[in-house]
Structures are given as structure tokens and as C-alpha cells.
């Protein structure tokens, strides 16, 4: 059991609203990078293959293929360096950790897309503000 005092401390540093990430999501993670004085945003896009830990220490792991080489990055979900997480697509997955993707190459590493429930679509829209509206209609056309 987590002591109450730890929860009190962690709550002070937690983000109020978390991106509704699930395992199997294709995401764009917007990472703040400090270069001396300047700050810029770098995007890391890939599949969420695992979520780990709880509370302030929760992390998620994103896997992508860069020049034929698999790259995984683990982000603390509450880190101030994570500016934004955009959920691009959701996939139908049957396990909590998608480590089996590491052994797959090319077409075999694809995941089956999941049709979204209404409330999920709304959540994604809220997350991405305006840009999602046209994308939403196109994805429906694809599936029909």
C-alpha cells in the first residue's frame, strides 16, 4: 500500500490531465528539448508497446523503426518534458506488453486497427484540438 504522505507529495507533481494512452496506440510524442537557452519540440512517433508503474512514476514505452533499426524510448508520463501526446490510431491488442513486436520485421509487425468507440474519439479530439476533425471522417471512409 502506498502511504498517504507519498500520495500527497506525488499529487503535487502530477499532470492534471493525462493523454489517454493505451497499449497498441500509434502516437506522436512531443518532447521538449532544451538547448542552452532555447527550447524546441521534437516528435517521436511509434507504437506504445508497454505501460509501466503507477502514480507519478508511470511510464510508457514507444517503439519505432528508424532506418531499419528498432528504437524504443521510455517516457515518464508525468514528465514536464512531455509537451503533448497525439494519438494517431488505435490497434486491437490482446496483451498488456507488446514485446513480441521486437521479434517481428516489416509487415508482420503491423497491428490490427481498432474501430473507436464514440467517447474515445471525443477524448482524442480533445487531445488534439482542431486537427482531428477531417482525419476522423477519412478514417471512417477507409473502414466502410
Amino acid at each position, binding site marked *: 500500500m*502506498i*502511504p498517504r*504522505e*507519498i500520495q*500527497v*507529495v*506525488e499529487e*503535487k*507533481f502530477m499532470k492534471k490531465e493525462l493523454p489517454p494512452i493505451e497499449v497498441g496506440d500509434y502516437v506522436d510524442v512531443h518532447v*521538449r528539448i*532544451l538547448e542552452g537557452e532555447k527550447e524546441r519540440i521534437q516528435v517521436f512517433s511509434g507504437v506504445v508497446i508497454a505501460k509501466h508503474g503507477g*502514480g*507519478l*512514476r508511470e511510464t510508457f514505452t514507444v517503439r519505432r523503426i528508424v532506418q531499419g533499426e528498432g528504437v524504443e524510448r521510455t517516457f*515518464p508520463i*508525468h*514528465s*514536464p*518534458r512531455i509537451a503533448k501526446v497525439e494519438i494517431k490510431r488505435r490497434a486491437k491488442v490482446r496483451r498488456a506488453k507488446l514485446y513480441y513486436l521486437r521479434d517481428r520485421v516489416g509487415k508482420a509487425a503491423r497491428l490490427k486497427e481498432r474501430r473507436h468507440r464514440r467517447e474515445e474519439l471525443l477524448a482524442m479530439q480533445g487531445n488534439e484540438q482542431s486537427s482531428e476533425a477531417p482525419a476522423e471522417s477519412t478514417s471512417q471512409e477507409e473502414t466502410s
Partner: protein
Amino acid sequence: MIVGLLGQKVGMTQIFEEDGTAVPVTVLRVGPCTVLQVKTPERDGYYAIQLGFDDKPRGKATKPERGHAKKHANAEPKRFIREIRQDGPVDWKEGDVLTVSLFEGISAVDVTGTSKGRGTAGTMKRWGFGGLPASHGVKRKHRSPGSIGATTDPGRVLKGKKMAGHMGNARVTVRNLKVVRVYPEENLLLVCGGVPGPNRGYVIVRQSKKLRSAPQAS
């Protein structure tokens, strides 16, 4: 005046600084502590304050414990009572209640606790010995310390030789832990890094000795 308080280790977590660095912290519940006695050279031969932390139910306290707390500070008996040695007269009086806000503005602390007991431990665990090889004819001696000394000269094992024995459950002080945050409303102190002892173990928190000696040197 040396700022020191008694407290309890709550556990560890991590927090994020504004630039995104994750800091590993130990959460300590520090104070409120009652000053049970002020020791002076005239009476006791040295300066110190005796603090009490965490109330003990009266039924569980002995009569001397109840009497001591009541006589000096008119307080409830305490579970954890320790002295904080002082280098001179102090402003605090018997019966004063000290809180964690004393640590505001102090950059580093020394934390004293009782380390987790490991029972009887061999030399590999207790002292980090390498043990003997896994193969090449070594039989049933893989975790042995090997030789413990020379032959007829000196004809005995040197004093202080590191050997197997009881490990842990001893007083340990970790010095110069950075104070990361102070939360007076919740009586919490966050220090960077680990602290001896189990969660819920009692600790003594003092302003760092290194900080104390620094101004005198300059």
C-alpha cells in the same frame, strides 16, 4: 544553534523539477516535536535539547515516561525521544513544539537512522568480498572468505579482520543530503537520495555538519 528534529521515514518516490529532471527523493515525516528538556552545562555538563516525537498512548507508557513528559513540557509521553547536541544556549524552551518549517532555508541535512537488520551475513554480503571461483576444483567453498591471515608470524588473526557476523540494525548516518522540498502544512521533508532504515523507521534529521563547519573555516 543547531537545527535538528525527529521524524519518520515514509518512503521513496521521485519528483520532477521544472526543467524535467527527475529527482529521487525520500519522503520524511518530520515533527512536530516537543522539547522535553533543555540541557545546560551548569546542570548537565553540556548543551542539548531533548526532543520527543510521536505520542505514545498513556497506557503503554511507563509511569516515569509519563512523569518526565508532564513535568518538563506538560506533554503526552512520546515514542521516540532523542537529544540534539547544541554548541551554545538555545532560544527554545521546554514545552515548545518544533515543526519542519525550521528546515526552510537549510540546504542540506544529515539523517541518522537504524539500518535494516540482515541477521548473520557472510563476508560476500557484509563486506563485498569476491568469494572463491565457481569452478577449477573449488568445492563447497564458493562464498568463503579465503585466507584470514598469515602463518606462525603473527600466529593470530589481526584485530578488525572483516569476517561474517551480524549485519545491519545499527545506527547509520547519511550526511549532506540535499533538501529538495519542505511542506510545513503536511509536516513533510523531501531529501534527495536514500535514508537508512525501513519505511516507518524513526530518524533524526539535523542540519548538515558540513554546512555548520563551513562558516567557521572562512
